[in-house]
């Protein structure tokens, strides 16, 4: 049984006025990081949008992404569940377990073939199919099988988007991202460890509203949320520009809200919406609470040279290197130096005395 009512109809059936609908659209547009002038377009689109079926697959994950989803205040998870989508498979939230759960997934796939949305959190291990299984099925098989009939895939979290922590060196399980396996479907990468709650719901809302993939950057992330660096929008940016940096976590600079660059903040190279939308209903974000940005929405951020090392600092261990290099240079230099010296000595030995006759003859 498929719900064919549009979001507009669902809302009006709940007795929500057009004013309420417009407000809903305004909040939705804001949350999707769209300019207010787009509100009429959002309203138009939402009037026609239908509740899509969503299948959420959890692979090598920590459930942090799902937890983040539950923190979204706009739209709320309950709003999403009741009004906007049909979340037909989701380990952490669904009631059914075991074979009943698997049947729900298969049912949703059949019922909505070609139109359902697959959300993936967690990476997929390729090292051995036994590294991660659900119902005895390896992750890679389940992903391929589920993705086959999907309209699009949303890779939620850095693990699904870029491999994340399992992919970090030495990647013991051979973990890869969704995009490494699925090549023939549109994939939206919603990175972050976890992603900002309203960014997850914002991307889902965008897909629901417009029925298509939003504009993406070269890493497959929606530019509406990942278009600018944290540093670009950081309220501490003026301190960076003035060269005022906190030196430690509770010095005067830290208490004054000075820039955390020296404490290793990766804001300048991290594309995410933390500085604008902030976390948990706009309460704060890591930098506002005194800890530098990890760069968690960026690929390979776990191996990007240390969370407490300033961005400009080298990550190379150079102590021994310098010694070894100096020794190597000295050895090579000594060798060639000796050659040079004997080259010169030979030339001096072969020197024929210049006589006045030589001069007169020339």
């Amino acid at each position: 049984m498929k719900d064919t009512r549009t979001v507009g109809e669902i809302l009006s059936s709940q007795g929500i006025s057009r004013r309420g609908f417009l407000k809903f659209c305004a909040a939705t547009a804001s949350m999707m990081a769209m300019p207010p002038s787009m509100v009429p377009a959002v309203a138009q689109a939402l009037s026609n949008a239908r509740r899509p079926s969503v299948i959420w697959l959890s692979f090598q994950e920590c459930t942090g992404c799902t937890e983040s989803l539950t923190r979204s205040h706009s739209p709320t998870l309950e709003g999403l569940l009741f009004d906007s989508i049909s979340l037909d498979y989701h380990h952490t939230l669904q009631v059914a377990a075991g074979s009943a759960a698997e049947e729900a997934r298969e049912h949703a796939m059949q019922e909505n073939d070609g139109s359902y949305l697959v959300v993936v959190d967690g990476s997929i291990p390729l090292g051995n199919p036994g590294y991660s299984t659900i119902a005895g099925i390896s992750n890679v098989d389940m992903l391929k099988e589920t993705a086959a009939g999907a309209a699009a895939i949303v890779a939620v979290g850095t693990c699904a988007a870029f491999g994340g922590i399992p992919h970090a060196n030495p990647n013991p399980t051979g973990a890869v991202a969704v995009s490494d396996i699925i090549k023939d479907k549109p994939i939206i990468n919603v990175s972050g460890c976890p992603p900002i709650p309203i960014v997850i719901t914002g991307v889902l809302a965008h897909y629901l509203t417009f029925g298509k993939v939003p504009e993406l950057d070269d890493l497959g992330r929606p530019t509406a949320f990942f278009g600018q660096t944290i540093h670009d929008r950081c309220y501490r940016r003026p301190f960076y520009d003035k060269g005022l940096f906190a030196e430690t976590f509770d010095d005067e600079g830290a208490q004054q809200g000075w820039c955390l660059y020296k404490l290793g903040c990766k804001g300048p190279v991290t594309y995410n919406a933390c500085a604008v939308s902030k976390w948990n209903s706009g309460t704060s974000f890591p930098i506002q609470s005194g800890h530098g940005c990890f760069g968690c929405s960026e690929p390979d951020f776990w191996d990007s040279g240390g969370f407490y090392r300033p961005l400009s600092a080298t990550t190379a261990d150079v102590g021994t290197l310098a010694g070894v290099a100096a020794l190597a240079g000295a050895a090579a230099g000594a060798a060639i130096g000796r050659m040079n010296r004997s080259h010169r000595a030979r030339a001096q030995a072969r020197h024929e005395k210049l006589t006045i006759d030589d001069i007169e003859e020339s």
Partner: protein
Amino acid sequence: MSTSLERGIRTWVAQIDAPIASFFTSCVHCGICADACLFFTETGDPKYTPIHKLEPMRRVWQQEYTFWGRLAKRLGFSKPVTEDELKEWEPLVYDSCTLCGRCSMVCPVGNDITYMIRKMREGMVAAGYAPEGLKAATSRSIRIGSPMGVRLPALQAQIKAAEAETGLTVPLDQEGADYLMLLSSAEIMQFSEIISAVTRIFDEAKVSWTLASKAFEATNSGMQIGSSDLAAQLVQRIVDAAEALKVKYVISPECGHAYTALRWEGPNLVGRAYPFKVIHILELLDELRAEGRLKTDGFEDQRVTFHDPCQIVRRGGIVEPPRNLLNMVAKDFVEMEEHGIMNWCCGGGGGVSANERADPIRRKAFDRKKHQLEGMGVAKLVTACSNCRNMLEEGLEDNHLDEDIEVVGLAEMLAEHLAVSNRADTGESTSTAKE
């Protein structure tokens, strides 16, 4: 490759040392040395840029002493030095460089370019590339004993004249004298007044000195042409004579390169330290002054300036003595704008004056000195190098300034003002008196 070219290159290989390698490594092609070279400043031709004059030797260094150069040479990527290049470079190295050392003073990375040119000439001459005039002068030096062909009789004639003039004996080959005085051929031939002058001064200061018949010539064409082998022969003569006469000091006369050749290069050329000391005439005079043994009378009434001979001052290290001495006799002594170790060369040092081919450019380069003198209002231009003196006189004449400015040797000027003591008072004979 011709054997001579090969010989030249081998000479460079033998001559290049750690400082030269360091200098070539450091050069940043800033071209500031050009501004220090009067041949550039007066012609504006970039080829006179000092560091450029070393290009062939630089390539030899690169190809023989650097890793990449050796590799490139082995792989055939490097451009070998050719006869044509040496031919092209010969005038740059000999005609338009007086080894004055001014470029070495301005190089921001500290390159002693003059030191390099000196070595550059070693290879050039070994390869057979040296100007005819300089070759001839060298030939005369070796074969006759003096670049100008001055032989002992000519000196003896001048000694006679001096003795007649001063009434004093000019000691020759006096064994056991403290000082062996050398002369340059220009002094013997053109500025023989100097003989009288030193005779009188030494007499007055009671200096025990002598001339040597076997080694009266101080100049060293071998060094100018750039051959250490020949330069060594010439130095050896002086060393032999000084040893034979058992002198304690050898006095280098008012001649620039002679001082460098004998004082600084000499021991290295002959391969051992001297058993005597080399002292420049100005140093000696200044010592005498300091000791009160040199007293002067009266002052020059005209404005006087001093032309620092490059090899004596900048590259010889004798900066204060001429000034001390000048101040004894000149009330209106003024310095040129750039003086002392930053003075401009007369244009004829380093063998350029012996090289007729260089005459036009040398004369052009004299403009630098002319500009220096302009507006100074000096009547006397004192110097302490007979070659400078020659060049200055000629240059002033070329520029029709000889009427206004007289060129004078410093020792000579001192002699003119020498305060003669009353011999009767002391009752002693002079050191030059025959025993």
